[in-house]
């Protein structure tokens, strides 16, 4: 995995989170984001973002973090 590839994944998930946030309802948004990733992201991309979250996920927005939690489930 290259640094840039990971950076792009982080940027993508944070952007998905930002675009689905409505009236600050983080739980609902996280659910939407997780569903989106399940539906549209390739297996390897999901694995990479989960791995990143497990190692701290410093650059993930709070909603993105919640979404990755749900992705694991």
């Amino acid at each position, binding site marked *: 995995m*290259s640094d840039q590839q990971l950076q792009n994944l982080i940027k993508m998930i944070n952007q998905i989170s930002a675009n689905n946030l*409505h009236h600050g309802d983080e739980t609902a948004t996280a659910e939407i984001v997780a569903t989106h990733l399940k539906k549209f992201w390739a*297996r390897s991309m999901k694995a990479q973002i989960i791995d990143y979250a497990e190692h701290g996920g410093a650059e993930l927005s709070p909603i993105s973090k919640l979404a990755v939690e749900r992705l694991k489930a």
Partner: protein
Amino acid sequence: MLHYFDPGKSSFDPNRDLGTPASPSETLVSVSIDGTAISVPEGTSVMRAAALAGITIPKLCASDNLEAFGSCRLCAVQIEGRRGYPASCTTPVAEGMQVTTQNGKLAKLRRNIMELYISDHPLDCLTCPANGNCELQDMAGAVGLREVRYGFSGENHLDAETDDSNPYFSFDPSKCIVCSRCVRACAEVQGTFALTIDGRGFDSKVSPGQNQSFMDSECVSCGACVQACPTSTLMEKSVIEAGQPEHSVITTCAYCGVGCSFKAEMKGDQLVRMVPYKGGDANHGHSCIKGRFAFGYTTHQDRIKEPMIRDSIDQPWRVVSWDEAIGFAARRLKETQAKYGRESIGGITSSRCTNEETFLVQKLIRAAFGNNNTDTCARVCHSPTGYGLKTTLGESAGTQTFDSVMKADTVLVIGANPTDAHPVFGSQIRRRLRQGATLIVADPRRIDLLKTPHADRTMHLALTPGTNVALVNSLAHVVVTEGLEDKAFIEARCEPAAYNAWRAFIAEQRNSPEAMEAVTGVPAEQVRKAARAYATAGNGAIYYGLGVTEHSQGSTMVMGIANLAMATGNIGREGVGVNPLRGQNNVQGSCDMGSFPHELPGYQHVADDTVRGHFEQVWGVKLDNEPGLRIPNMFDAAIAGSFKALYVQGEDIAQSDPNIQHVEAALRSLDCLIVQDIFLNETAKYAHVLLPGSTFLEKNGTFTNAERRINRVRKVVPPLAGKEDWEVTVALSNALGYPMNYTHPSEIMDEIALLTPTFTGVSYEKLERLGSIQWPCNDQFPDGTPTMHTLDFPIGRGHFAITEYVATNERTNRRFPLLLTTGRVLTQYNVGAQTRRTDNSLWHEEDILEIHPSDAEVRGVQEGDWLGISSRAGHTVLRAKISDRMLPGVVFTTFHHPSSGANVVTTDNSDWATNCPEYKVTAVQVEKVSQPSEWQRNFQTFDKRQQAYLEQSQDESASALK
């Protein structure tokens, strides 16, 4: 009695000219013509009624695609109870009318008229290019002209000079009979008004613009006048050169999403000219410069004629046999998978190839590669349409036919430039505007549609690039808060919970035009006026293009558009709807055919076990249930080293995709790049295997246009390198050990029909019978579906989606104070590989940067200066054009020429839902420079080297043959 309901589209031979247009009336009127009784719609001309009864009246100035004009008088008839000899083209039928079309008096009258015409006409019929296909000649024969008493010595126009300025047709005024068909065609059919009749009486003559040459005039070279001309005055140069064609085949234009039908007129295996086909339901006999004239690339010397391979991109090519090339490619793919895993390879399908070819490529990837790493160039244009429309309306497609616009009262065009990018449909919108419809354009540029003559009810919402969602939300806010909603529609057709949530959201003050004015730059009062015009017009129709999708909120904007249409009840009948204007010819088809990594054909998700089970059963393999990589993900993975081989059919990702330097780095990291194309395009320069592609003239198949219309593509000449594109995919699949045994594209279509619920009723046999089919076509809609969502949505009820405006990260700042937006021009097509290899380049030799006078002034920029354009992604150099079409602060360019490197500057920002790149917004700085950018210099060196490799290989192959 013959009974005709004649609504224009009928079973009549479209090759016949019935003289005047059809009347839309449903009231029938009975008349008798030369004793034959016939009933026709009220308003039909006597000439058309006669033609419907099988009686031909001589004519010169009439044609059934133009309003009757009544100038030549050759069509005179006698009507019982009326005096004189009325012109049958301008006389409407009346109940009980008795018409005589032939008798001694009429014959004499017609002969006299013809005599006058001929006395001012050169009698060089034998050497005239129209010989054998000239209406003047035909009429002279029909009226029995035997002598010309006036002689030819009087004053005449015989030595008028020919205007050869247009590369595709010539204008020889000495042959002109001043019937004004060309003038009317340019006005009524094309809507450009480039031609006028200058002077009066004997002095009158046809003239482009103010006595300009065709090239210098407003003419856009659509060819409508050439087609309308009854003589050889306006004539295709290809016919002058080759002579009259002897047979023709009906096929579909391979240039844009309008999908015009054409007659490819042939002489043996030489294509002499393309003539738009009146029986085509997308274009009704009209065309634009690209489809009509720009076919020279198909026989261009640069065509790749033989398969070639090489081990590394720093080596010359080796010309090999098909078997060797396919074997080499298959071996490389297998080795890559063995070394790096099943998911390390993938493919890209083409929006220019046929449905059948696209279907096969994604099948090859899913079944033979064993993964879902398939994507298509629609990723970079209309993927947000798929996402947005599927979420809201339940189907990833436009809702209407093109003809539906003729019933629209307000036409809302967002981020599209139809007169350049979808010219034939642009002409149709103009026709409707001249009839009185209101036009609203939401676009940062003042597009040409706004210049439509006689369209005074126009509004231009000149928004700042990147603020679409803010604008559409404020439009919807006005609809909701001013009580302009269609409550009955919403209640009957839409999901209530989602609607209520959306309504509460959109009604919030922060979405009002007043609050959003600071964001969009559009005065609130204009937004309110536009919203009212759209919502209360009766029929409001929305057309949108890449100015909607190619943004970080592309998908949100598509949903915002669908919300607006649902809230006002503008869905589910003619004259309304939500219509994406597709760029390339088969964007719709490539999306339908399962090119996206998460969807099997028919937009069926790969994780759906039932659906996948069906495919597995028919294809006889296990399929992956997880989505694959999209194009930008493939590039990232390639640079990271986990993605190693790619099969690209008919796409040029190294020119069309954003942030080119990133793409180039990705392509260089591949162990095996297989490119199938008609030219050595930019991507092919990085390839290890080059497989010759075939043009649309060289294969059978289907394209699906922007109105979901499946049109046949028919082979008129054999493929240059021996294989149609689908045959190449078949060979590759067989070499990989996954058998494919198709012998004709119709068998592929049968498989598509078997696996795709919206295609179950489609077959070549039915296409032959109906001409074209708009999907869905199945048991419920056996003849297809012109208007979608008439009773319900595929998801049951329409879904209002919340569309929060989120500003893009791409913002102007001190370093990059301007916004760059990109687009296209009429004469060039996409990456230009085809159109640059035709005379269309005379109109657009290079990509230029349009800049507003005030921005130019502060930078001391003059017209024609070299300008360096830099963004955070890269730097390139283009020539300046000062233009006030743009807002101050916004600059514009195109990407038709690879060396201009417009996409060196665009960034990797993309739509949040689909990764569709944000081509329409890049923050840039512009300054005067004296030399090309570093990228451009590297490009030239690399290009030279690759061209040399190609030449070397061809020299070798030529000497091997000796």
